[in-house]
Structures are given as structure tokens and as C-alpha cells.
């Protein structure tokens, strides 16, 4: 086998030769990139109300549960959602607001829980970073209030708290809001699904089979 360094040089040298007549000099690359035509829709046109309606509609198409709450009632609404889940043991990210940890449930705060420990929980509560109404997508950046990726993956039930002000209409708008890429991102557009058997769409393969979203009206 060619030594690793040799392969690198070989491949890059072949690329250089292959693209010699079309590649931009290093100091012009950004300019050439900037000249790529982008005439697709970047900004949505919906009003705030219509955008939230669309978000809810798309979430419900995925069988996600959606309820609204004012900031004042949020803690109570969370408690209500946890209650109707019929579940008791929940994992929460270490940075989840304390008011959200409704009493009467067995809370496991994730301070480097093992997978085996998380596997014993029944649900998870997280905040979120953004949501895209057009596709009903919730975006997690896995910061302190959203938690490590494993805790929103292993439990079967996920309650996601989404602020109305976090909802954008189009995917390009998300990228406008976050020009600097976070190191970890998970885009969630409904529970997992497969159509591998006869194109029959089956929901809930791996990952939480039940998604519930509270849309906090922090915009009114």
C-alpha cells in the first residue's frame, strides 16, 4: 500500500492537473464562490401568524403533538404534557431551565450519564435553537439547554420547547440566522421513518417515536 503521505500528494497532484485550466487562484477563490448565482427564494413571505400556523400544520403532518403556551404558562404546560405522556422517568440536559423540571417525576439530569442509564429513561425534554416552518423542521445545536445528542436519541418520547421567535419560514433563513456553523447540528423533521419495505412508510424505527412540541408565544 502506498504510504499515506504519498497518497495524499498523489491525489492532490492529480486534482491540480485535472483542474488546472478551470481552478481559481487561492486569493480569488472566495470571489469566484461569491459569484455563484443564487436566485432561489431565501426569505419567506408569510406573516408571523401564518408562519406559526404552517409550522404547526407541518408538525402535525408528522404526527407530532403541538400545543401553544404563553411564557407565563410554560412550566404548567410542560407539566401537563409530561402528565399526559403517562411516563415517569425523564432525562433532561444539564442546562435546562430549572422551572421546567416539573415536580412529581423522576428526573435524571444528564451530567455524562451512560447510555445504559439513558436507556432506562422514558422520555426527554429539551429546548431548541431554531425551527423551519416550510418543512416542519426543528433544529438542535446541542447546547446546555438542548443537551448531548444521545439524550434526544435514545428515549422514546421527546418534548421539545420551541419559542415562536425561533421559527423561520425557509431553510435559507435558518442559515442567515446562524452564519457561523455550530460544531453539532441535528435537523429533526418528524419521527424516524422508513419506506424500505414495499415503499410503505413506517414511522418510528430508531430514535424517539413520539415527538411533542410546545410553541411558546414569546412573540406577542
Amino acid at each position, binding site marked *: 500500500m502506498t504510504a499515506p503521505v504519498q497518497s495524499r500528494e498523489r491525489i492532490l497532484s492529480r486534482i491540480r492537473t485535472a483542474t488546472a485550466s478551470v481552478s481559481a487562484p487561492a486569493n480569488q477563490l472566495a470571489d469566484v464562490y461569491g459569484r*455563484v448565482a*443564487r436566485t432561489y427564494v431565501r426569505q419567506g413571505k408569510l406573516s408571523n401568524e401564518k408562519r406559526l400556523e404552517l409550522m404547526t400544520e407541518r408538525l402535525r403532518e408528522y404526527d407530532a403533538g403541538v400545543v401553544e403556551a404563553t411564557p407565563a404558562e410554560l412550566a404548567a404546560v410542560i407539566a401537563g404534557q409530561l402528565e399526559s405522556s403517562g411516563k415517569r422517568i425523564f432525562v433532561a440536559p444539564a442546562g435546562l431551565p430549572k422551572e421546567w423540571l416539573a415536580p412529581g417525576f423522576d428526573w435524571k439530569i444528564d451530567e455524562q450519564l451512560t447510555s445504559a442509564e439513558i436507556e432506562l429513561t422514558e422520555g426527554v425534554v429539551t429546548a431548541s435553537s431554531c425551527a423551519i416552518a416550510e418543512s416542519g423542521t426543528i433544529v438542535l445545536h446541542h447546547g446546555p439547554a438542548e443537551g448531548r445528542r444521545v439524550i434526544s436519541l435514545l428515549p422514546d418520547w421527546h418534548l421539545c420547547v420551541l419559542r415562536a421567535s425561533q421559527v423561520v419560514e425557509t431553510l435559507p433563513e435558518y442559515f442567515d440566522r446562524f452564519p457561523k456553523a455550530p460544531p453539532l447540528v441535528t*435537523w429533526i423533521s418528524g*419521527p424516524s421513518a422508513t419506506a424500505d419495505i414495499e415503499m410503505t412508510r413506517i414511522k418510528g424505527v430508531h430514535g424517539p417515536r413520539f415527538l411533542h412540541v410546545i410553541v411558546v408565544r414569546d412573540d406577542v
Partner: protein
Amino acid sequence: MSAAILDPKLAPPFRDAVLPVLRNPMLRKNVAHATQVIQNKRAKLVAEKTDWQELRASASAIRTHVLENLGAYLEQFEERCTAAGGVVHWASDANEARAIILDLLRQENATEAIKIKTMTSAEIQLNPYLETAGITVHETDLAEIILQLGKEEPSHIVVPALHINRSQVREIFSRTMHLENLSDDPKALTAAARHYLREKFLRVPTAISGANFLIAETGAVAVVESEGNGRMCLTLPETMITVVGVEKVLPRFQDLEVMLQILARSATGERMNPYTSLWTGVTPGDGPQRFHVVLLDNERTSILARPKERQTLKCIRCAACMNHCPVYRQTGGHAYGSCYPGPIGAILTPQLMRMEYAQTLPFASSLCGACFEVCPVKIDIPAVLLDLRADAVNIERKEAKRAFDLMYLGLRVANTIFSRPWIFHTAQWFGRVGLRAFTGKDGWIKWLPSIGGRWTHNRDLRGLPSQSFHEWWAARAKETK
């Protein structure tokens, strides 16, 4: 179920490979059904999008820009990924890639690995190689488990088991997972797979994945999926090895705003697939603490060097082309003898094989153009097919036996006929006379010998009229004088 050969070096010519498929009504029904479902879903969402053509144009432009500056972007990716704690390896070909991956597994003392579906690993035939080396590879995509447990080969790059129906899946699962009372309801089958895989996700510390996109700007990797097995594999294990073609890089994080919109709609007919994950090197405390990327060339740089063929590398593996291909619809994927079937396979596979194998694939098309019409990154597949046909002929022409090949003879004769009008007109006269013996009273020909039989085996041919158009024109001109 057939044991299809998906090694281009061993696969039969396309014409022969399709025969068992054409005689398999169940497989043809499954393929027609699957492709129609995705066609319909995609069409609905494309109609809903007001800027679909603009997205395609930008997607094509971004991919073209990347390919033209591939070296710079790969180096940038390497630098950023390394700074974020990843280790980047470069593999010139399949042999090297496999050896690198095995070496990394050995360093971990790994005896097993869980795997996210990646066609790149099928391209380098990774699984058999690792199995021979004593490493058990557990596929975790539902389709891939079906194929692995059923000892089958993929026939589509997004829905690899679309040729297998529910009762066949039931049979495979109940046999290999030892489940006696398993029904053939897809829900039950999926639940069986979920249960079967759960303990593996929690136990196996090493994972192998592919990647949909590499982000040069930040050294990030993006995996687009539906089932969640991807998230499992890239979150739970300690070591992650990602093998990916060098062409998969995008300049910036922001470029995903185009790619994610077109990929989901094209591949599965959804506005967005359920889960897309992006990670950058190693994040302490979250996910694998050892992360390796194996960048694979394997003839991609040869394709890159040819201006007309370069566009082959724009591909984002959405499979829209094969979902709309009227040839694929009747044959499914196995007939193409490669892990890359359909229209993209017809241009990619021969090129990855340096035109030493799979030379019948560029001819496995009626050039209808449906693929180009739906390709989200605007690969002009028909144009590349035509180029590869010319390549194949230029190679074949030099062979001595071609002097006796009826197709070659016929085309040479036809060229002479078309080179001068008097030869053309004389040939028409000869044709009229010669075919008279085969022409019935109703003026139609039902049978022709030799190469003519390729027409008459399934169609009649109307006999040559006694007066050609140009003769009619000349006669009319004389009359009016």
C-alpha cells in the same frame, strides 16, 4: 431470490443481465411500484416549490464550482477537520481504502463494527474484505439488514431493497432472527429490526459511515437519513470511521440550504428527511472521541480530468434519475452489475472501471432524457452516455474481430450510403428490390434474416414504398414544367 453479481468485473453484459429480471413479474411489479410512489411524491413537492429550477441551477453551479476547485476545498476540509480533532486519511483506490479502514479497526482491537448504509463502502467492497479479516460488520439500515441477512445485493441507491416484498422480508427475518410468529406487516417487520439492532447500537464501540456532504469551511460532515440508525451510529460508539468520495465536499455550511432542499425532495419525495446530522471532528463528552475520515479517489480524479465527464461527479446520490428511468423501471438495479445502477450508474460505473469493464452500460439507455430532466444538480446524463459510447467504440474499433461484427459492418456501410446522394438513392432502389421477397401482399414485412431480425422479432415493418419522397418531388417538378 437471485444472488446478483454486483462486481462490474464479473457482471454479464447488460443485455444478458436483464433477461432473468424481465422474466420475474414480482420483481418488476416491486420496482414499478416503488419508483412510481417516489415519482408521484416528488412531483407533488416540486410543483409546490416556486423556485425549483432556481434551486437546481444553484445546486449545479455550487457543485461545478467545487469540482473546479476541488483541491483547495479538500485541503481546507482536511485542515479544519484535523483542527477539530478528526484524523484525515487519503486513499488512492479501493485497496488502500480497505486497508486503511482495517488498520484503524485493528488499532481499536475491534472485532465488530456497526455500519450506516454507504454506497461508497459497497463500491470498495468493504464488507467481504472485513469479514475475511475476522471483523463482523453489522449493517443497521433496514434495507441493508434485509440484504445482509438475506444475502442479497442492493438494487437502488436510496431504497436498496425495493425489489424485495414483505413476505420475502418476513421469511428472512423469521429465519435469521429466530422469530417464529412474525407477521409480514411492515410495521411488525420494522419493529423486529428495531429490537434486533438496539442491543448492537448500545454495545458495539466502533462505527463505519459514509457521508452525504463534507463542509470545507468548518471541517464538518453531514449525514442525511430517515431511520435514525445514522444518529445511533454516530453518537453512541467511541470510534467513528467515515469513508467518503473526494467529490462530496461543499464550500460552506450555508451551501446546505440548497442541497438539503433538493436532496430530500428528489430522493424520497419529502420536504425534508427525518434526520440530518452534522458533526465537526470530535466534541468532548458528546459522541465518538476518535474520528477518522477516509477520503477516496478510486478514479474520481480521472473523471475530474475530462471536461465533459466531470459533471458525473456533481452527483449527490439522490436516485431521482433511476426513479424516472423507463429502462430501470423494467429492470431494477441488479441488471447494471454495480452498486451504482440506473442512469448515474450507466455513466459512473464504466468510468470508475476506466472503461475496462461495464462497457455495455452506456448503451443501456434509449436516451430519453428523463434523468437529466429530474437531476437536481443538472447532470446531462445523455450527453455523458453519448461520450462514453464514442469511447467504447474507439476502443472496440481497434479490435480485429470488429471487422466481422455485423453492427460495425452495418454502420460502416450506412455511412458510405449516406455519404453521397447517388449511393443513398441506389441503396434505396436495392432495398426496394431486395425486400420485395420479404414483403407480403398487404405491403408489410413480417420476417427478416440476420440483423434485420432484431426488428422483426417483435414488430412488422412496412415494405419500402415504390416511390421515395425525393422521387415524388422530382416527378412533381417535372409535371409542373
